[in-house]
């Protein structure tokens, strides 16, 4: 009963069914990975080539290790956002939208970033003042 007849061999078959599963898993991976890796932040166009070492207009922000200053006033980032929103910068012409921003001392990127974000989101253009003799 169980004996094979002479000359009757099983056809050699390569199992390819699982290839589909692997391939579709790879597709799902690519789709998910592509959609997850989006960067969040803000775009800012810093005017290049204009150099100033002192704040010359009333819209100036100073960031130091001991705090953040809007003009002469010591403020928090939330207060700076409010002050900038009050200027209604987005409705003005590009030259009037420049907010001078100076950082003194070795402030971390976290603090600097928040100020840049506040200026940018209020419709301002950050005019960054470099410290004289700063590291290039």
């Amino acid at each position, binding site marked *: 009963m169980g004996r094979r007849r002479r000359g009757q061999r099983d056809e050699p078959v390569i199992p390819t069914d699982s290839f589909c599963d692997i391939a579709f898993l790879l597709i799902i991976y690519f789709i998910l990975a592509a959609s997850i890796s989006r960067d969040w932040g803000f*775009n800012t166009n810093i005017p290049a080539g204009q150099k100033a070492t002192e704040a010359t207009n009333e819209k100036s922000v100073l960031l130091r290790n001991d705090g953040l200053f809007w003009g002469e006033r010591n403020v928090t980032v939330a207060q700076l956002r409010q002050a900038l929103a009050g200027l209604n910068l987005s409705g003005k012409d590009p030259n009037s939208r420049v907010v001078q921003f100076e950082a003194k001392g070795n402030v971390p990127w976290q603090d600097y970033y928040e100020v840049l974000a506040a200026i940018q989101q209020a419709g301002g253009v950050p005019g960054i003042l470099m410290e004289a003799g700063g590291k290039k």
Partner: protein
Amino acid sequence: MSSRRRSRMRRPKTVVPVTSMGDIAFLLIIFFVICSNFAKKAGKNVQPPVSSNLIVLPKPKLYVAVDSEHKLYFQGRLVGSAGEIEAELTQLIDPNGSVEARTVIFECDKSVTKDVFEPILESIAKGGGIIGAVGKEGVRKEK
């Protein structure tokens, strides 16, 4: 007799042709691989700064990163100074190009200090780039 005959008769096997499914799937994979922008990120030790009201940045074509050890990367490659980045950007960026084409994604660790990141910001601006500063959405406790 007739029931014996029936049992001997073989029924045709139902076979779903799945071979071509594999081909289609692999074609789709090739499509995704070709069309996707491979990450040029180096940032293993980059903790982005936290801020609110952030937007989704365009897909990076030009990418600058500074990690927590103050190492500077351009397009995933370690570079020595901000001056090198400016030189490369000047060649790569068309000053009259679109905003998206000129956007340089800048990812910097939040602990990096001004003496490191400010020259890089300046070199991106001088190279004709628009800075796409990467952050993490959230609210930071006021100091």
